[in-house]
C-alpha cells in the first residue's frame, strides 16, 4: 500500500466519493452548530423543504452571544441575540438536533464542551461554522471551520464538498522552559511562518515537545493553527490522548479494545511525503506577547517592538505601520511595563481547567492591580464547577478577578463584554485584529500565566519573574 500521512488517511476514511482532481465528498462524523452561523443554513433547508439528513451526528450550543454575568439564571437582554438563541432552540426542536441551551449546566464554548463531554474521538471528521474547529486535531480528529452555505450542505447531507489540502509537518523538539506554554509555542510558530504560512495546508505537529504537552495544551496549539492560515491541524494520538478520550467517552467502553486497535494506526507512515516541513526547538520559546493587529505580530517579552524599516518588504512595512498606529506603541520600545486596563482570561484557546490552574497559582495571595478590570470566563459550565471544586474560583475571587459564567465573551465581543475605545487588554484569546474585542480596543495576546501576571502587576510583565520568586 502507498505510504500516507495521517491527514491522507483521515480523508480517505471519510471519502464518500471522489468528485474531481481536487475535490471529494467528505463525510462528517460530527457537525457542531452555534447560534450565529447556523440560522441562514436552517432557513435554506426550510426553503428546500428537506430534513436534516442525520440529526444524531449534529450537536448545537449557544455560546457566541451569551452574556457572562455571574448570575444563576441567564437571560439574554439584547433582543437580536435573544432571537438567535430562541431561533436555534426552535431549529433544534424542529429538526431533532441535540442542544446545549443557554441555561444548561453543561453549556459552554463549542470547542471546549465537545472534547470534554467525550464527543470528539480519534479518527473523526468534525465540522463547525467556526474557524477554530482546528482544535480537534489535538484529539487525532480532522476538524476545520466552514461557512454557513456549507453548514446547510452538511445539515442536508452530512457531507461536504471538500477541496483537498496539502500536507505540512511541523516538528518541535526540545522542552518548553519554565513559564512557557503551548500558547507561547504557537505564537512563536505563527510569528516565524506568518499569518498565511500554513495557508492551503493541514499541519501535522510532532516531536518531543508535542509528546510532552498535555491534551489541553495540544488543543491550544491546534486551535491557533488557523491563525497561520492552516486548513486543519493534527497530532497523532498517543496513550495520553487515549486515556483522555476514554475517561470521557464512557458510552464506548464496550468497544474499547477494537477502538484502541484502530486508533493506534492513526499516524503518518514513516516514509510519508509532506509538501512542506518546518522544525522548531521548544527550548528557544520565551513567553510571547503580540504588539500588533495580527497574531503573527508577536515578540518575546524581553524583546522590543520591531521598527517598520526592519520589515522584509513593503507589504510587511505597511502592516507594521498600520498596526503600531492602532496599538499606540513605538518601534524599539519594550512591552514589559506597558500599563493595561483590562485582562481577559478565557476563550476556546485558553478557557480550560489547566489554564485556570495557571492563573490561580499566580493569583494565590496576590491582588489584581488597582485600576485593572480582570475577567475570568471559564470555557464551560463543567470547567467552572471543576474550578470551584478545586478551590481555584475562591482564589481568583479573593484576588479580585471577576468570576463569570461560560461563553465566548470578549474573545470576539458579540455579547456585552467589550473593550472601550483605547482600552488596552491582556488577553488569552486568539485574535488581536483591529476592533476584535471592541472598536479601538487594543488586544495583546498571551498565555494565561502571562495574563495573570499582567492583571496582578497592572502592566504587561514577564511571568518568569513572578514564577522564580516562588508561589
Amino acid at each position, binding site marked *: 500500500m502507498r505510504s500516507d500521512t495521517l491527514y491522507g488517511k483521515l480523508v480517505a476514511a471519510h471519502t464518500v466519493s471522489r468528485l474531481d482532481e481536487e475535490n471529494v465528498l467528505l463525510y462528517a462524523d460530527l457537525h457542531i452548530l452555534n447560534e450565529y452561523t447556523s440560522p441562514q443554513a436552517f*432557513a*435554506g433547508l426550510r426553503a428546500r423543504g428537506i430534513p436534516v*439528513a442525520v440529526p444524531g451526528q449534529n450537536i448545537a450550543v449557544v455560546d457566541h*452571544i451569551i452574556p457572562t454575568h455571574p448570575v444563576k439564571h441567564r437571560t439574554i437582554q439584547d433582543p437580536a441575540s435573544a432571537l438567535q438563541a430562541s431561533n436555534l432552540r426552535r431549529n433544534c426542536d424542529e429538526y431533532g438536533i441535540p442542544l446545549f441551551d443557554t441555561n444548561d449546566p453543561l453549556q459552554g464554548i463549542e470547542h471546549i464542551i465537545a472534547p470534554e463531554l467525550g464527543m470528539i474521538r480519534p479518527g473523526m471528521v468534525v465540522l463547525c461554522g467556526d474557524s477554530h474547529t482546528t482544535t480537534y486535531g489535538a484529539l487525532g480528529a480532522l476538524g476545520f471551520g*466552514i*461557512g454557513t452555505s456549507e453548514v446547510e450542505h452538511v445539515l442536508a447531507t452530512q457531507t461536504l464538498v471538500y477541496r483537498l489540502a496539502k500536507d505540512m509537518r511541523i516538528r518541535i523538539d526540545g522542552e518548553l522552559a519554565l513559564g512557557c506554554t503551548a500558547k507561547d509555542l504557537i505564537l512563536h510558530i505563527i510569528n516565524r511562518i506568518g499569518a498565511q504560512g500554513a495557508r492551503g495546508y493541514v499541519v501535522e505537529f510532532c516531536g518531543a515537545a508535542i509528546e510532552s504537552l498535555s491534551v489541553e495544551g495540544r488543543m491550544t496549539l491546534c486551535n491557533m493553527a488557523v491563525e497561520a492560515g492552516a486548513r486543519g491541524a493534527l497530532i497523532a494520538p498517543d496513550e495520553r490522548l487515549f486515556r483522555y478520550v476514554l475517561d470521557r467517552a464512557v458510552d464506548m467502553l464496550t468497544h474499547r479494545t477494537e477502538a484502541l486497535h484502530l486508533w493506534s494506526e492513526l499516524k503518518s507512515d514513516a516514509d510519508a511525503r509532506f509538501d512542506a516541513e518546518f522544525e522548531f526547538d521548544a527550548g528557544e520559546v520565551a513567553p510571547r506577547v503580540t504588539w500588533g493587529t495580527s497574531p503573527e505580530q508577536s515578540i518575546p517579552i524581553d524583546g522590543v517592538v520591531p521598527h517598520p524599516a526592519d520589515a522584509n518588504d513593503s507589504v510587511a512595512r505597511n502592516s507594521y505601520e498600520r498596526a503600531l498606529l492602532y496599538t499606540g506603541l513605538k518601534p524599539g520600545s519594550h512591552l514589559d511595563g506597558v500599563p493595561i486596563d483590562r485582562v481577559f482570561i478565557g476563550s476556546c484557546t485558553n478557557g480550560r481547567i489547566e489554564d485556570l490552574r495557571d492563573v490561580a497559582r499566580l493569583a494565590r495571595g496576590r491582588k489584581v492591580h488597582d485600576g485593572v478590570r480582570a475577567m475570568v470566563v471559564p470555557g464551560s459550565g463543567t470547567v467552572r464547577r471543576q474550578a470551584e471544586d478545586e478551590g481555584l474560583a475562591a482564589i481568583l475571587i479573593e484576588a479580585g478577578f471577576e468570576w463569570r459564567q461560560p461563553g465566548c465573551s470578549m474573545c*470576539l465581543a458579540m455579547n456585552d463584554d467589550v473593550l472601550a475605545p483605547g482600552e488596552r487588554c491582556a488577553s488569552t484569546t486568539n485574535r488581536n485584529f483591529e476592533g476584535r474585542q471592541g472598536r479601538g480596543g487594543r488586544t495583546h495576546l498571551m498565555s494565561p500565566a502571562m495574563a495573570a501576571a499582567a492583571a496582578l502587576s497592572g502592566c504587561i510583565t514577564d511571568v518568569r519573574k513572578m514564577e522564580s520568586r516562588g508561589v
Partner: protein
Amino acid sequence: MSERSMIVGIAAPLPIANLDTDQIMPKQFLRGIDKEGLDKGLFYDLRFDAVGERREDFVLNRTQYSGCRILIGGENFGCGSSREHAVWGLLQFGIKAIVAPSFGEIFHSNAMNNRLLLTPMPQDAVDAILADVSNPRTNRVTIDIHRRVVRSRNHTVDFGLSARYCRMFTEGLDLVSSSHARLPEIAAFERAHWTKQPWLESVAAVTRNRLK
C-alpha cells in the same frame, strides 16, 4: 456580455495585508437570523468614525470610487473568522470580484458558494493593477472570466480558476441539491463506516442523552 463572463467597473485599491473578516464585517452586524442589511456593516470601522460619521478619506467613500464593483486587495484577504456574513455584505454592497495575491481559506469557499469572484495573482501583478486604479482617472477594470484575465488601464494579468470554481461562478451550481441526490450513496458509506467504528454512530445524540 453577461455579468457571469465579464465583470466591468470601477475598482478600488484596498492594499491591506491580512484584512480579516472581523474588519470586513464587524461583530455587531452578526446578530441577524437572515442575510439582510449587511451592506450597512461592510468595512464599518473603515467607512465610519467612532461617532458614525463617514470617513471621507476612505477609498469606498470617495465619489470617484462610488459604485465600485471590484476590490484590489492585499495578501491573505478575508483571513480569520468563518463568518459568511463578510461575503454576503460584499455582494450586497455591489462588489462582484476581488483581486488579491491570496485569500483566507474559509473566505475562499464562502465566496465560491455565493458567486463572488476571487482572482489570485502574484503580488507584483496586483501592485501593477493597484498603480492603475489608485488614480481615479484610470480606475476601471475588466475581468474576463473565460479568458481568465484581469485588465486595468496599463496591465493585463492572468489568474487561475479551477474548472469547478469556474462552473460554480458562471452556472451557479447548487451543491446542496447535487449532493442531496446522492443520499443513498452517503447512507451506504455511513453503514460501512459505522460497522467498522460503531462508537461513531449517533455520537451527538448518545452523548446528549447520556448527560440528561
